[in-house]
Every structure is written in structure tokens, then in C-alpha cells.
């Protein structure tokens, strides 16, 4: 590719033709401020509406200021990024944005982690001229089971719209209205609940302000922890331990499993358990289901539907229930690990400790916002008592730990409680794209062939490409596997399934880019995909360190089947650990 040379702030830089001023400057270590712009380059995700105009720069010979995010470099160009004219323009732009923004930073859920707030600080804004007479939008708040929308705080960066439409292809959100009332909303400004929203939370993950936040369940958790009649059990999802440390200033990719356990115990949970245990259980059920369908299929049974699709991800479940209801018999019927955990905790474990399920409270710590919705689904409760009572995100847990005057950095390493805290490396890798299917392969291979696996790491299933495929040799039988992360990528594979063109035997789908490590409930990445890569590396490191790395070798899983469930896919296992899917009818409700 042709290389061109330009000068930015008196420094020369060589870049390929087509590079933007913003990227060329970054190459020189010059960080031009941006607000609407966001890039996750490892996942080919870019938001570049060139709408906010914070990134303007002065280009010699050009009459007006040039937005760095959208202006391509030219050979011999001379760019200045911090002239008086530029700084004044930036400040004016910021003052205009702030004039139409609520000034309630003190009590905003995003305070301290808000890109708008940081930008106002960086630009040294000390007053907002005309703020008292400026027009403001007046939207009501919309609270769904997972996500809160507070549109008066929307600055029209349109990152959420890009995630929802271009990356996830969900199409719940779009820019609507004009002028001061311009905001991002579902069709007819209905609530999210009446839109195709899957609650994947990727809009929340990229929102620079407090316009999109999660529903906070910590007050409820605090209440049950203070109630002496309740036994409170907590489960932690695999991706949480690879990200929680970031909220305490640790380097991305720092594993905090032991410190997290200590913190949870200090918060007052009676039993600190691990969703990874339930992930091992999921593999037993889902892996068995895969082999069963595969064997029936190979014997010519036309009722055996292949490919089997993983069903751990609630955002993904919502997606196919809405967009592919005709395929609702295709995914595995296995519940997600969160819900398997709840079902086992409130049956097997409740019996063991002789506590009525109504007095046993199950809290989950999840990297995910859709899990909040999932635990509220009708089919996951018994007589109105939910299997999982509350689900809080990694971010909420961090805030909760800080409120308890604890610093994760200073805590001892703790151990999970038995029996629902024991897990294998296979359960850990559920937290990253490709992990569920790799865990399934480790177990399904040994069950199918009766032989021991020579290698445990299936690196061909790993990585960050949006759609990946691999063929695994099951001792003569080639098992073809597809992997998609991000719902737009999943849609591609699903369209093939619908048209009967899919060549795969099994497909893993995770709704969020990167899998759960990039979930909507994780510490905010602020557009840095290196963070997501570091978390993935941490997950694989935890897997490598585990003495047991195949789900079927987990001694507590073996015991659970012996004592309680019988064998995988038994009637009892079906009753407790499997579910069914529903068509999400499109409801047209017009605003009153």
C-alpha cells in the first residue's frame, strides 16, 4: 500500500494512504480527544458518525477545521491539534453539548466513569454559557428488566445505535426526532420491553454517558444479606474473575478469583459457589445431547436436528426467539449455567442443608445484563419462587465491594465452598468465545470414543474472528464446529441453518463480541479491545492452572449424578436442567 508522509504538531509521520488524522496522531502518541468515535479494531467494530466535532484539528491551507476521526491524511499535510482556534472550538462544542445535558453528575450512576464528564474535565470547562435558558429534552425514564434508558443524557454519539444495528443486527434502537429532542430510541418511542431488544447490554457497554445503564439489584441483595431468616448463596460466572480487578486499578487480565471469593464472604454471603460448577454440569447435559443427536443422525434418524446450537447465552436465546422462532427446536434444551445452578441449589443443595427453598436466596454475579432478564423468566421459578433470585453485574459487584470498605488489592486469596464451588478448566473457559464448544469437545470426545484425549487445548477453536470453524477428529468421525460471537455473526450462521445449507454439527453462539468477557455487565472498556484480549488470556490461564480440565472428571459433578440426578439427560435431569423456547410475538403497541 502507498505510504504518505505528513506532519502533526511538528512531528513527521508515515502512514498508509487512507489513514485518518486521528489514527496517524495516535501513531505519534498524540491523543486527540474524541467523544462519539469508538473503535474495537480486533473485532472490526467502528463508530464514526463524525457528529460531535470534539476531535477537530487545524489543517494548513484548509479554511474550516477538520474532524480528525473522519479526515483522511494527505501527502505533505500539516496538522495542528492544539492551536488556540482548535481549543476554543472544542470548548464551544462541549459547552453546546453540556447546555442540553442534565447537571446531576453528583447522583448519576455513571459518575466517575463517564466519558462526557472526563471530557469536560480535560477541556477545562468551568461554566456553561446560557445553561439556564437553553432548551432541554424531557424524556421519561424507561426501565426494562435489564437496562435503564435516561434519554435526557443522550448526546447522540450513536454508538449504541451502531452496536444494536450494525454489530448485533437486533434493530431495537435508532436515532429519532430532531434538534433538542434528538435521541436514540426504539420504534415509536416505546419501552425496550416492547422492542426486539435482547438485553445483550452492548449499548450500555459503549454508552459514554449515563443515558444507558443497568438495573441495579444490589439494594435487594443487601436486604436479603441482612435478613437472618435467609440463607444466601452466591455464584460467580467465569468471566467476572478476569475483569473485576480492573475496577480496583489492576491491570486488565489480572485474575482475582481468590480475592473475589474473600470479598464475597466478607460481604456476608453464607456460601460462595461458582457458576463454573454449573458450566461443568451444562457440558454433561449439552455434550450428551450433542452426542445423542449426532448418533441418531448418523443412523439416519431424520428427527435428529443438526446442527445443535449452544443455549448458555440469554441474549442469544432472546435473539433466536424473536428472529428465528421457526428454528426454536434446534438449540440445545440445556438451561444456561446460571439457571442450572439455581435449579440445583434450590433442590439438591437446599435438601442437603435442610433449608426450605423459600428461605434460600440465590444471587448470581454475571458479566451480563441479559442474565437479569433471564432469571426473571416465568419458566425459571417454582410457585413464584425464582431459581435465581437476583443477578448483579461485575460492575455492580465492584461498587458493592467498595461500599463495604474493602479494597480487592488487599484481600487474601479464598477458596470456593463445596460442593457447588468445585469446577474444572472446562467450566472456566465458558467465559470466552469458543470456550463452551471447546469444553463440550473435551467431554464429548472421551465419552464418544472411550479414549483419553491426547491434547486438551483446542487452539483452532480460539481467537477473536467473528465467525470461526474447525473440524475435530473424533477418532475417525469428523465433527464440524462453527463459532460465532456477536449476534450479527450468529445471524449469518442461522440463515444458513434456516436455508438448510449449514455444514456444521454444532454451533456455539455468544451474543457479545469476545463472548462473556466482553459482556454488557463488565467493567467498561471505553473502546480498548486490548482489554478484552487480556481478559481472554486470563481465562485460558486459569484453565491451564486447573488440576482437572474436563467437566466429566469433576468429582462433585460425578457425585451429583450418583446421589441425585442419575445420569445425564435422565428424567430428573430433564426436569431440572432443561428448558424450552418460545416465539416472541411481535406486538405493535402504539404510544398513548
Amino acid at each position, binding site marked *: 500500500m502507498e505510504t504518505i508522509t505528513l506532519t502533526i504538531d511538528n512531528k513527521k509521520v508515515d502512514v498508509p494512504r487512507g489513514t485518518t488524522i486521528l489514527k496517524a496522531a495516535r501513531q505519534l502518541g498524540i491523543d486527540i480527544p474524541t467523544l462519539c468515535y469508538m473503535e474495537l479494531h480486533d473485532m472490526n467494530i467502528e463508530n464514526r458518525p463524525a457528529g460531535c466535532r470534539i476531535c477537530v484539528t487545524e489543517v494548513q491551507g484548509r479554511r474550516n477545521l477538520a474532524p480528525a476521526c473522519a479526515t483522511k491524511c494527505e501527502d505533505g499535510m500539516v496538522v495542528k491539534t492544539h492551536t488556540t482556534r482548535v481549543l476554543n472550538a472544542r470548548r464551544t462544542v462541549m459547552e453546546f453539548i453540556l447546555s442540553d445535558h442534565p447537571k446531576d453528575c453528583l447522583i448519576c450512576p455513571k459518575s466517575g466513569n463517564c466519558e462526557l464528564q472526563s471530557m469536560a474535565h480535560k477541556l477545562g470547562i468551568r461554566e456553561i454559557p446560557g445553561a439556564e435558558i437553553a432548551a432541554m429534552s424531557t424524556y421519561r425514564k424507561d426501565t426494562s428488566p435489564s437496562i435503564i434508558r435516561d434519554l435526557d443524557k443522550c448526546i447522540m454519539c450513536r454508538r449504541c445505535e451502531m452496536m444494536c444495528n450494525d454489530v448485533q443486527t437486533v434493530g*431495537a434502537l*435508532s436515532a429519532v426526532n*430532531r434538534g433538542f429532542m434528538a435521541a436514540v430510541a426504539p*420504534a*415509536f*418511542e416505546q419501552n425496550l420491553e416492547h*422492542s426486539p431488544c435482547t438485553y445483550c447490554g452492548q449499548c450500555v457497554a459503549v454508552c459514554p454517558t449515563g443515558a444507558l445503564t443497568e438495573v441495579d439489584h444490589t439494594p435487594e441483595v443487601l436486604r436479603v444479606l441482612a435478613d437472618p431468616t435467609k440463607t444466601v448463596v452466591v455464584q460467580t460466572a467465569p468471566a467476572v474473575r478476569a475483569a473485576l480487578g480492573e475496577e480496583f486499578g489492576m491491570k486488565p487480565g489480572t485474575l482475582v478469583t481468590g480475592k473475589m471469593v474473600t470479598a464475597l464472604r466478607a460481604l456476608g454471603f453464607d456460601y460462595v459457589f461458582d457458576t463454573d460448577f454449573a458450566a461443568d454440569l451444562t457440558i454433561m447435559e449439552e455434550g450428551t445431547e450433542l452426542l445423542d443427536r449426532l448418533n441418531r443422525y448418523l443412523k439416519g434418524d431424520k428427527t435428529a436436528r443438526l446442527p445443535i446450537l449452544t443455549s448458555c447465552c440469554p441474549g442469544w436465546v432472546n435473539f433466536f426467539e424473536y428472529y428465528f422462532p421457526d428454528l426454536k427446536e434446534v438449540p440445545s434444551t440445556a438451561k444456561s449455567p446460571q439457571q442450572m445452578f439455581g435449579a440445583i441449589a434450590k433442590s439438591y443443595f437446599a435438601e442437603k442443608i435442610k433449608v426450605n427453598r423459600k428461605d434460600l436466596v440465590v444471587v448470581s454475579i454475571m458479566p451480563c445484563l441479559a442474565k437479569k432478564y433471564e432469571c426473571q423468566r416465568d419458566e425459571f421459578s417454582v410457585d413464584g419462587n425464582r431459581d435465581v433470585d437476583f443477578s448483579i453485574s461485575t460492575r455492580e459487584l465492584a461498587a458493592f465491594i467498595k461500599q463495604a470498605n474493602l479494597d480487592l488489592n488487599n484481600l487474601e486469596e479464598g477458596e470456593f465452598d463445596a460442593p457447588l464451588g468445585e469446577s474444572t478448566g472446562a467450566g472456566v473457559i465458558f467465559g470466552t468465545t469458543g470456550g463452551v464448544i471447546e469444553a463440550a469437545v473435551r467431554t464429548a470426545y472421551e465419552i464418544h470414543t472411550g479414549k483419553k484425549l491426547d491434547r486438551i487445548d483446542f487452539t483452532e477453536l480460539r481467537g477473536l474472528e467473528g465467525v470461526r470453524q474447525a473440524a475435530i477428529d473424533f477418532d475417525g468421525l469428523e465433527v464440524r464446529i462453527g463459532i460465532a460471537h456477536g449476534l450479527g455473526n450468529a445471524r449469518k450462521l442461522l440463515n444458513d441453518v434456516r436455508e438448510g445449507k449449514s455444514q456444521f454439527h454444532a454451533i456455539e453462539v455468544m451474543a457479545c463480541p469476545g463472548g462473556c468477557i466482553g459482556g454488557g455487565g463488565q467493567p467498561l472498556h471505553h473502546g480498548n479491545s486490548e482489554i478484552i484480549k487480556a481478559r481472554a488470556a486470563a481465562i485460558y490461564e486459569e484453565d491451564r492452572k486447573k488440576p482437572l480440565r474436563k467437566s466429566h472428571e469433576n468429582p462433585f459433578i460425578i457425585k451429583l449424578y450418583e446421589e441425585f440426578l442419575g445420569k445425564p439427560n435422565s428424567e430428573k435431569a430433564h426436569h431440572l436442567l432443561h428448558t424450552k423456547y418460545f416465539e416472541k410475538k411481535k406486538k*405493535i403497541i*402504539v404510544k398513548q
Partner: protein
Amino acid sequence: MSSIKIELRQEDVSKIKEICASFNNDPQELINVLHKCQEHFGYLPAEVQEVISTELNVPVAKIYGVVTFYSFFTMTPRGKHPISICMGTACYVRGAEKVLEEFKKELGLQVGQTTPDGKFSLSSLRCVGACGLAPVVMIGDKTYGRVAPDDVRNILKEYENY
């Protein structure tokens, strides 16, 4: 936004499909499709947007975004007698705003609204090309020139029995 829940009849759905098909169900043609649909129905209720969404394979949120962005598109049905007050430069300097205020007062409407009985709707537009008659008001196809605020009541009287 007022509530307009309409039931589309089968022939309405067929008409929308026909319009979409005439543009090869091309998502790029969304604005042209919306123009044609508004021409046919007089406005673009939610249900019409839903059908277009399915036909063009565009999320309905996007369509709603376009409808609310361009002021020409409306989700409110126009009245039997749509009143348009020209707010072009010539009309404006000769007092169109006062005329508009008078219509608002007489009908109890804001611009973009329709009377509950569906008789009148009120809109403002830019230059109808009759500047010599400024200020100009149009009701349906009929043009009224040199309108003064005092004339408004008499003009509306003409429609008493229609």
C-alpha cells in the same frame, strides 16, 4: 404524540406491498416508499411502518427515525380540510404569524395537530409561490390571499356545513 391505533385492512397491506415492490423492496428506497405511502394514506401510522419494515427488511426503529426526522412525514392523519399557512419570507413579513396564531386560537390546535372530529388539521409551510397575495392560506386546494387575522373566523365559517 396522540394515539392512532389503526387496523390495516388486507387491501391496505396489499397496497403497501405493491408500493414497496414498485421500488424492488430496496432498503435504499425507503424515503420514496414513505412518500408514496403517505400520498396514499395521508399519513404514516405505526402499522404502515411495520409493514414497510417487513417488506424492505429495515428495522422499524430506523423507519420511525426517518419519519420523525423529516418534517414532511407525519404520523397524524390530516383533517378533512387541511389548513396550511405559508410562512415564507413574503408572507411572514406581511403578518402570517399573526394569522397562524388566530387559526391556533380558533381551532385550539398546535401546528401538526388535527381537530378531534377530524375536520381540520393545521400545518405551516414555506412559500407556495403566490407572494403577490401574501399572506397566503391554503385550505385543501383553495387559496386565500391577503388574509388578515380578522378574516380567520369567516374563512372557517365557510366549512361549517362540510
